[in-house]
């Protein structure tokens, strides 16, 4: 029984990792067209880094991800605090909507924002993409921070008020420092969501501002290419390192 369990778990992991591993290996394959091994090379990586359009797209992606993560962390934290601290009309609706937005298929979010931007006649590009990514990320930050807020003794906020703190001071000196780890987690989550997104970017950016996933998408549609292998290998490596570091970071926190 125990052996069966180990075998099963191993099979699932092989399924998850084999394609990624193969791609990484082939990013070093000298052969351009065939899958047969023709010797080790770094050519594709060199080629990759000399592709100016691709590098620009990568920079754009990083820029959008950092900005979207920062904006949605601020906005999401304020929303979470408002939901937890204050009773106001539409509070329940907003709470439910955040959950629904988190579950919404990307394509629904993408086309609804496209319709909004068209209705406002905003040209698709940097700003529309940023707004779209913030919209994608805010619910995740809110729910993360809100969960953390619920874990606190509500009397802590009352104690601060009791000791003379106004609403802003409560936020600045008590709520924010207490939820900061959750805000940070929300920031990383948002960054990853933004970097990974294909569908929403597909609808909400224009030719003036290209991001990496869309660039990859247009390359991948044309079939296998060794430099795409190299690019994907780099992205896998970055993700693995980021996950590893964040796990370490979380462990030390708790």
């Amino acid at each position, binding site marked *: 029984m125990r052996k069966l*369990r180990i075998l099963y*778990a191993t099979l*699932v*992991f092989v*399924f*998850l*990792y*084999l*394609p*990624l591993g*193969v*791609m990484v290996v*082939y990013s070093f394959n000298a052969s351009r067209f065939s*899958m047969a091994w023709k010797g080790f090379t770094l050519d594709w990586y060199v080629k990759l880094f000399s592709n100016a359009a691709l590098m620009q797209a990568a920079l754009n992606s990083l820029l959008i991800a950092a900005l979207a993560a920062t904006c949605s962390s601020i906005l999401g934290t*304020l*929303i979470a*605090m*408002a939901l937890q601290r*204050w009773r*106001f009309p539409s509070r329940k609706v*907003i709470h439910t*909507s955040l*959950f*629904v*937005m988190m*579950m*919404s*298929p990307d*394509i*629904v979010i993408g*086309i*609804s*924002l496209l*319709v*909004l931007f*068209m*209705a406002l006649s905003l040209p698709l590009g940097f700003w529309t993409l940023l707004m779209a990514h913030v919209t994608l990320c*805010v619910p995740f930050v809110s729910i993360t921070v809100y*969960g953390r807020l619920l874990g606190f003794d509500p009397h802590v906020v009352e104690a601060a008020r009791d000791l003379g703190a*106004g*609403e*802003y*001071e409560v936020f600045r000196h008590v709520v924010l420092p207490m939820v900061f780890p959750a805000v940070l987690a929300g920031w990383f989550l948002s960054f990853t969501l933004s970097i990974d997104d*294909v*569908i929403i970017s597909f*609808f909400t950016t224009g030719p003036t501002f290209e991001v990496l*996933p869309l660039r*990859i*998408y247009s390359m*991948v*549609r044309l*079939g296998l290419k060794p430099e795409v292998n190299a690019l*994907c290998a780099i*992205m896998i490596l970055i*993700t*693995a390192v*980021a*996950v*590893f570091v964040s*796990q370490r970071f979380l462990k030390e926190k708790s």
Partner: protein
Amino acid sequence: MKNDGFFKLAVIVGVISWMAIFAFVPNILVFLASFSSTSTQNFIEPGFSLSNYARLMDTTHLSILLSSLRLSGLVTVICLVTAYPFAAILARTRKPLRNTLLLLVVIPFWTNSLVRTYAMTAMINSSGIVNNVLLSLGIIDTPLAMMYTPGAVVLGLVYTLLPFMILPLYAALERLDRRYLEAARDLGASPWRAFWKVVVPLTMPGIVSGCMLVFLPGIGMFYVSDVLGGAKAMLLGNFIRDQFLTTRDWPLGAAASVTLTVLMGVMLLLYWKSAARLGGKEA
């Protein structure tokens, strides 16, 4: 202290207006668009008619809708059946090893899904690993044509979405108090019955949220169909995208999107029901 009320008011007004502009208005616009008609000048001619929904129900469109639902349903079932025992094994593994294994699930979870879809092509295309292995083992003589088939799309979706099923199931199973299981056995339930009568109901919120996280993207992830399924639109996502960007029939695309939203609503209700039955909190 002086601007006390101002801070509170500013935050509340900000939150409500942001939600209104980016969450409610866009969806209302899509909803309205689904009842309007196309025109040559504008994408949308305001009006009220059910014709877009009627068009969605005609044979060609309906077959796309149904086949997409069937495909995604199949993907969900495969993921659930694969992930449940796996998550259970994970939840029973002892601590240091379990954290490592969990990390190994989280890495593909966070890896760009487009990258992962692409990785699958290297496995199954005519000169890919699978064909190479089968050929060299002499099991087949000519490469199997696996790319650009519904099967390839299913495989690609299962591959990209499996971690999204594993993690909620793992969370539910890990939280499951083993004493319930012991109590059930103590009261005379067989392991099989204890599983169906105790474990499954108690992990139902995890099952439903896992299914939701697989089923809904499984309908919308058009790039998986593009990369692995070829030119034929196999998912509702491709259909919606084409209406908006190629055919420019926004009202029809909007109607399809509303249909998808309604589907999500139904699944969310299911989720809340299953969570409420356990007396749990939402989310």
